[in-house]
């Protein structure tokens, strides 16, 4: 059966949103660059379970994360460092730090796997939060597709600007066809795995704005909200998440 049908939604859902969400589910279920389809769907599942994880709940309430030990709910489906990454990103992102991430890398998680899993987790989360906001049940996760990851590492990576390697700003802007000469950090953040950048951009184009519209500050596309209303929502959600960026 087709996913994201929204027949029971009291509020009509724009067809471009449903189509983009179906595309995201297809992307999540398919073999990625470093993770196979089964692992990617397991990452999506872990993202959903993190909200109810008892360890994450205790850590959210603790003054110091170091003092709270234990095991995340759902242990076993993913390697421990990958599971910890997904749960922390989902439930306590504002308190992440480079030493924590270096610790996960020392446990065997690679930067490439981390970036890809982060991409899968945040796509899942953004669709789930849309459903939650509208009072709709979460969409069942897709069945993993068979196949092997492509394992292609991009050239022109820059170290030291962030916690993970990034593609060069000019090169990546050109690769994505951006209307600016240098890709901003937020677009380069997942550029170690470019397919994950393209995937979140497809979602962003329907949930927020297409890249070409972002720098036209009076533009809101064909949305029912005007640009100021959109940016108020954007700023408030970022502030509630204590996101400096």
């Amino acid at each position, binding site marked *: 059966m087709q996913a994201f049908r929204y027949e029971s939604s*009291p*509020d009509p859902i*724009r067809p471009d*949103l449903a189509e983009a969400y179906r595309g995201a589910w297809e992307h999540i279920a398919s073999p990625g660059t470093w993770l196979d389809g089964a692992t990617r769907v397991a990452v999506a599942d872990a993202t959903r379970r993190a909200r109810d994880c008892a360890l994450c709940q205790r850590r959210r309430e603790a003054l110091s994360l170091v003092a709270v030990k234990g095991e995340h709910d759902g242990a076993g489906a993913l390697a421990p460092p990958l599971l910890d990454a997904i749960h922390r*990103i989902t439930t306590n*992102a*504002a308190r*992440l730090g480079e030493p924590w*991430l270096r610790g996960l890398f020392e446990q065997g998680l690679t930067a490439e796997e981390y*970036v890809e899993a*982060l991409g899968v987790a*945040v796509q899942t*989360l*953004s669709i*789930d*939060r*849309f459903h*939650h*906001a*509208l*009072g709709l049940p979460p969409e069942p996760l897709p069945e993993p597709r068979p196949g092997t990851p492509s394992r292609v590492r991009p050239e022109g990576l820059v170290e030291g*600007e*962030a*916690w993970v390697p*990034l593609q060069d700003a000019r090169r990546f802007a050109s690769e994505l066809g951006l209307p600016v000469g240098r890709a*901003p*950090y*937020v677009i380069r*953040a*997942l550029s170690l795995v470019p397919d994950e950048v393209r995937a*979140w951009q497809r*979602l*962003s184009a329907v*949930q*927020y704005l297409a890249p070409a519209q*972002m720098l*036209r*500050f*009076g533009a809101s596309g064909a949305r*029912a*909200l*005007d*640009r*100021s*209303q959109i*940016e*108020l*929502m*954007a*700023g*408030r*959600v*970022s*502030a*509630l*998440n*204590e*996101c*400096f*960026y």
Partner: protein
Amino acid sequence: MLRASIQSKGAEADLRGISKGAKAGDAGIAHGEKLARFAEAAVSGDPAELATARDALRDAAGSPALVDAAAVVGNFERMVRIADGTGIPLDGVVEALSGDFREELGLEGYASRRLLGTGAIARALAPLLRGAFRFGLGLAGRRAGSR
């Protein structure tokens, strides 16, 4: 981006809706209070608060606006985690343009604060840059309005 979108209409930006949310009222934005309350309930409210906020926004602005608002919530729940999960700093231009309101909004106290450190010259030129940016936005807004 909120400030730029308001200034492009030639109006004064009131950013309290970001830091104080629904408590700031509409803050010069149509349905601003209801939008902020919906954002707050969707991110951290209980089911009853969310249902109330959703109904209020739908009644005031309509179903299409509610769906768009939910989509923006989803979008920024994703984007904040991409930024926080990779440790990216603010871009230099954004750092210069936002210097005057970061403290006002309480952003400087966030654990996720990461700046490039644009240097003394950039800090000195920042007010000029902000003025030029504002002039450009106003010009673009007037041109768009005259079409």
